[in-house]
């Protein structure tokens, strides 16, 4: 018997955990799972991957900055970069319910940008995600874009750009991650195309029927959104009914619905009447709070409405412009420490998605 066997025998006969302990830990996990929307990198990405059956043009790394000349039109909902969008203090709402009502009213009034024949609604999601690599907790940036054609039969385009930037708490942290995982600092671009919100070609170049079987609140298509009720109560009920996680509890459903609303708005191509209804449906979710009337997401300021997620670690927020009702993005803010080196600091965003929408021509990505 060598010294390792001797060590191995220490405390070797501890009993298995109490079943109640296992059950309790599992329940906590399920509650957490039911409260989390698919992360963005679990969003389009796996859907695309599934539909692509791995690859297609995804592997075709496009040159950095290759590009698309974006012709921004000045539609009613307009381009959103750099708008001086703070409302006058007198008009700022005092609570979550009135803020959401205001957003809904503005949205109805403002309507949708005009997307002419042959044009595209171009949605950009600018994401910062908490990462933990080589013992270092930091934020990494990526961008996901989709071009939705004006005509229902038109070609959809997607582009995902990884490695757009990082934020470290300390320079030494960055050096450590650079040494261990240089991949985080390399820009990678993948592009793909499809129809009806779905990829329509197989890797081998064989035709693959287009379809939107994977559609739903997490991955909406225009056709799916068109079918949804506009009455806020019915809409909220439909969203709650669509939550499929078997681990949900009845008490979690409103939170799940709030997350679905955040994610659906982030898709960027929800029609104005449904956007207004979604704001009004969010108003019906218990426990929502007005977090700030001047929250900043990627340099744009707006109102943030939050809902504490089950288990109390993260707060889901949606952000919108109080002047126009325009959806600015969503984020998850760390509310309570997990006592874990890897977690982001309390009060900081664990993940954020800034959404901008404009109208372009065909990007012809490949």
């Amino acid at each position, binding site marked *: 018997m060598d010294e390792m066997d001797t060590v191995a025998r220490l405390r070797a006969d501890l009993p298995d*955990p109490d079943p109640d302990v296992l059950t309790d830990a599992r329940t*906590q996990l399920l509650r957490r799972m039911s409260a989390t929307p698919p992360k963005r990198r679990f969003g389009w990405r796996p859907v695309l991957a599934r539909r692509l059956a791995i690859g297609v043009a995804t592997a075709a790394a496009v040159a950095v900055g290759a590009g698309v000349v974006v012709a921004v039109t000045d539609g009613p909902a307009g381009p959103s970069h750099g708008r001086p969008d703070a409302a006058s203090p007198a008009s700022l709402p005092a609570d979550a319910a009135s803020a959401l009502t205001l957003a809904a009213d503005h949205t109805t009034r403002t309507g949708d940008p005009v997307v002419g024949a042959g044009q595209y609604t171009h949605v950009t999601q600018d994401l910062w995600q908490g*990462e933990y690599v080589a013992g270092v907790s930091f934020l990494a940036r990526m961008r996901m874009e989709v071009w939705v054609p004006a005509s229902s039969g038109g070609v959809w385009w997607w582009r995902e750009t990884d490695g757009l930037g990082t934020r470290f708490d300390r320079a030494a942290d960055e050096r450590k991650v650079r040494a261990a995982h240089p991949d985080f600092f390399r820009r990678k671009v993948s592009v793909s195309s499809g129809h009806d919100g779905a990829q329509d070609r197989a890797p081998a170049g064989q035709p693959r029927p287009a379809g939107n079987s994977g559609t739903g609140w997490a991955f909406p298509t225009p056709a799916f959104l068109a079918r949804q009720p506009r009455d806020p109560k019915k809409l909220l009920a439909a969203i709650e009914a669509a939550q499929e996680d078997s681990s949900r509890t009845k008490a979690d459903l409103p939170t799940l619905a709030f997350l679905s609303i955040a994610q659906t708005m982030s898709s960027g191509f929800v029609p104005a009447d449904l956007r207004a209804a979604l704001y009004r449906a969010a108003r019906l979710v218990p426990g929502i709070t007005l977090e700030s009337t001047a929250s900043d997401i990627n340099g744009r300021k707006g109102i943030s409405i939050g809902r504490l997620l089950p288990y109390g670690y993260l707060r889901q927020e949606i952000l919108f412009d109080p002047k126009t009702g325009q959806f600015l993005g969503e984020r998850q803010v760390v509310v309570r420490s*997990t006592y*874990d080196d*890897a977690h982001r600091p309390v009060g900081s965003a664990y993940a954020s998605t800034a959404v901008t929408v404009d109208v372009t021509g065909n990007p012809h990505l490949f």
Partner: protein
Amino acid sequence: MGVSEPGGTDADLVLTDFAALFDRHAVAIHRYLARRAGTGAADDLLAQTFLVAYERRGSYDRSRPDARPWLYGIAGNLLRRRWRDEVRQYQAWARTGVDPVAADHAGRVAEAVDAESAAAGLAGVLAALSRTDREVLLLVAWEELTYPEVAAALDIPIGTVRSRLHRARARIRAAVTPSEGD
């Protein structure tokens, strides 16, 4: 473990069915936590380990079919805050001959006292090891992780695993064979 079981590899479960990942590994993770810090601490930290893992699932290395090293690494991070308690328990064991962790269970005090005195001596050595050397030693001796698995769990190079383990084993050897003592 966890590689060829029905239901897919751990890498699949991380993405598709995290609850099944829990079912697959919770007992082993709890056992490791309990051996390190006592049953009470393990009861607290088990859920925490999987919650942290769930939140970090996006950064799971999909090329690794077995999630155990990843889970042990997270559990180890959480234990780090309790390392002083852990050391105090080894010290108490060495001093009194009673393992406080084993004695934690009702009716097990006698068994804990009956434990061979060599065990108490070993506990003293464990208490004296550096935190990092002890962690490598216990992942290999208790959890039977391979060098690459330990390297993955702790995010350190394999060479570092080897040198830490070498150091720890030398200290243990010296303790169990006093004539070669240092």
